[in-house]
């Protein structure tokens, strides 16, 4: 009787959308990671930039920063919540738990990437 009452097909699309959105969030630190590794390389080969001492430092600092970002950032959950209230979407405790779970999984992914930064820093420095 209400519009949008038959969402079986939509559900699959929604899950696919969520996966894409997660990738978008992860893309930023991955791009930063790649840039830190790649951009100094030509300078190291051509102009003697101290790649093995400076790049690990930068990677380590950015990795630690990323831990803090992941721990403190709500990944836009608050904005979604405010928008839901503004347009009149009913929010239940179940929705809040779902948001917390999603926030937690994003945070863990960021932690993983931050660990990658730090692991790479050690690898570049020692290997």
């Amino acid at each position, binding site marked *: 009787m209400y519009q949008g009452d038959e969402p079986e097909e939509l559900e699959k699309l929604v899950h696919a959308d969520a996966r894409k959105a997660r990738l978008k969030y992860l893309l930023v630190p991955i791009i930063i990671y790649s840039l830190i590794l790649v951009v100094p390389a030509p300078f190291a080969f051509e102009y003697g930039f101290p790649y093995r001492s400076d790049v690990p430092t930068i990677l380590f600092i950015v990795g630690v920063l990323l831990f803090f970002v992941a721990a403190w950032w709500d990944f836009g959950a608050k904005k*979604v919540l405010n*928008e839901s209230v503004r347009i009149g*979407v009913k929010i239940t405790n179940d*929705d809040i738990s779902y948001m917390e779970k999603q926030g937690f999984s994003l945070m863990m992914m960021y932690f993983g990437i931050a660990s990658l930064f730090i692991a790479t820093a050690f690898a570049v420095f020692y290997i």
Partner: protein
Amino acid sequence: MEEVKEVESKEFTGNSVMSIKNLSVNFKVAEGTVNALDRVSLDLAYGETIGIVGESGSGKSTFANAMIALLPENAVISGDIVFEGERLPYLSNVGRKEKKRDVKILDAKLRAIRWKEISMIFQGAMNSFNPAYTIGKQLKQVFQIHTDFDLDQINKKMKEVVIKAGLNPSVLASYPHELSGGMKQRAVIALALALNPKMVIADEPTTGLDVVVQAKLISTLKKLRASGDLKSLVIISHDLGVVSQLADRVAVLYAGRLMEIGSVMDIYLNSRNPYTLALLENYPSMRKARERVLGIPGTPPDLLNPPKGCRFAERCKFADSICTQVDPPVVQISPGHFSACHFADKVNVKTAEKKYSATNDILSSHSSGGLPLIKTVDLTKFFGLRSSAAGSIFVQAGKKSVAHAVEKLNIEIKEGEIYAIVGESGSGKTTVGRLLLKSIEPTAGKLFFNIGEDNVLELSNKTLSNEKIREFRSMSQLIMQDPYDSLNPKMSVFDTVAEPIEALKLEKDPSRIEAMVSQSLESAGLSPASNYIFRFPHELSGGERQRVGVARALSVPSVKFLLADEPISMMDISLRAHFLNNILELRQNRKLSIVYITHDMASARYVSDRMLIMYLGMPVEEGETESVITNPLHPYTKALIQAVPEPNPTWKPERTGIIGEIGSIVNVPKGCRFYDRCIFRKDICKDEAPPKREESGHWYLCHFSQSELIVNSPEEMERDVTGIKTPQGSSINVSGR
């Protein structure tokens, strides 16, 4: 005022729940002393409802706060407030030198009175719920603090009290944001009635609510009074219609003084005070909506330096030299009816009609309009929670997350036409306004704007060049809703009005800009402009601020289209009339097309040529304003018109012909949008979209013709937000007005 005090004491002695004698309240502020209340006396009898009316700043809320001893520390109080024979203790009168122990004793005394004996429905209280707690938890606190009930008793009492307030007990488990405005206000009423107090003070209890919800709330309050659940009531409002429905007696306040007091019939039908009569004459009721209203000239006096004599003299059309010299005597008109006026014997409804609607001209029919300026074709706007990456992640699959803000809007606004868009909050009016101003992009559909000489811009085209958009911006302007918040307090009037000229880079020469600003201030009614140009918002009255908003919109000379979004909702009656007249003059002088967005049918009738009624994002009826008002075709329009309050005690809002409150734009019905609230609904309405029925330019969306609109059961009309269904009964026809 001495005379009032004496006579009233005789009338109500021994029978009063509260007796106020010669109450004066002065606030000490940096600039001096504000005389907020001046020797006000009145008695409230057991079981009586007294209404207190007046404009903003007349002292209504100060009076209410004084009755429950909630005045701030800078208030200096004289006179007596006696509640059930005992003088109300005042913390503010204790002073810093008093011992802490005394303060504690007074505090304890007040705590015993507040809420248990006297409770209050505060202004805007529905927005003061703690968003983190359920309604039940907040209601439970009242019992936990003031009673010794155990949990079972509290739960039982809570259920009883929410049902009394017209709510379903399931709301106890809801968070405030899950409830509509009307339901929240009912929850506030439940809080006030929780401890069965002897007296309830309701400060603007219906302000901020839509007319339909307001009418239903009035009905609930009436029922509570009739059942005895609401004992003595003090209702404070600037809305004469609301007070006329609920009060037994009415007191009229102006600039801190009591101007008139009497029974509701005395005040509304036989007033003998120029101020009361001015308020009544300027009240925007449907009955008088086509008559020219002149408003009350001037502004209330500065209470830092109150004028000598009658405080209303400067604005009074009956005033004489004596009024500005001598305090007016209190004249007894009939038993219980007193008026503070030098000319109380000469002033009456007939003489006031002559003075306040001097021209008495029924507004001639509005312009039929010229060429189309704006055209929309199936204009649609959806807001999706999943449109952002965060939304895609945080919104659960299967959860409805699309708001159908506006759907399939087809309108045509002509040059020089005032086009009203009317509906309750949540009907999509403001979204339409934002779409028309291109401040948001439509999801689907087309929007055209005629920039002149048959050059039509398609504003919905996303590839429109910046140059064209700037050209459109120079032709369209907005008047905002709130004259208090929409002006930057750090910007002078000049800076505010010159802002669009500078932003659109229309002029660089400072002297030319000043000339343009002066001209727009003059055309907005701020004359002479030199008096206003260097003032800051805090130096202006509410009406002047709104005019600055109009001047800002008019400062661009090429403006052809003006959008006024609820421009009078924050204004007093007197200011409303001035503003609406200003709009009519602008249309006449500058041939502007104006889209007037409002939930106030009466003002829409006063200014507009054509009218669109919206419900849950859908346009449901459109036509010439007079045709829509005098012959409403859609059930929603009928209900809206029935719900507009009349300042007349004989008006009955009990049957508004509508069920519950406006739904959610996220969960819209498949068939007719109005299905959930319609008293004429049938099965076909549930799943099939209604067709458009048209008669000579006046159309509505409904499955049924007027003769087919038959209510299934009389009880259907009584169904309330409790959602309690009643058995089916015989059919009655309530189509038409």
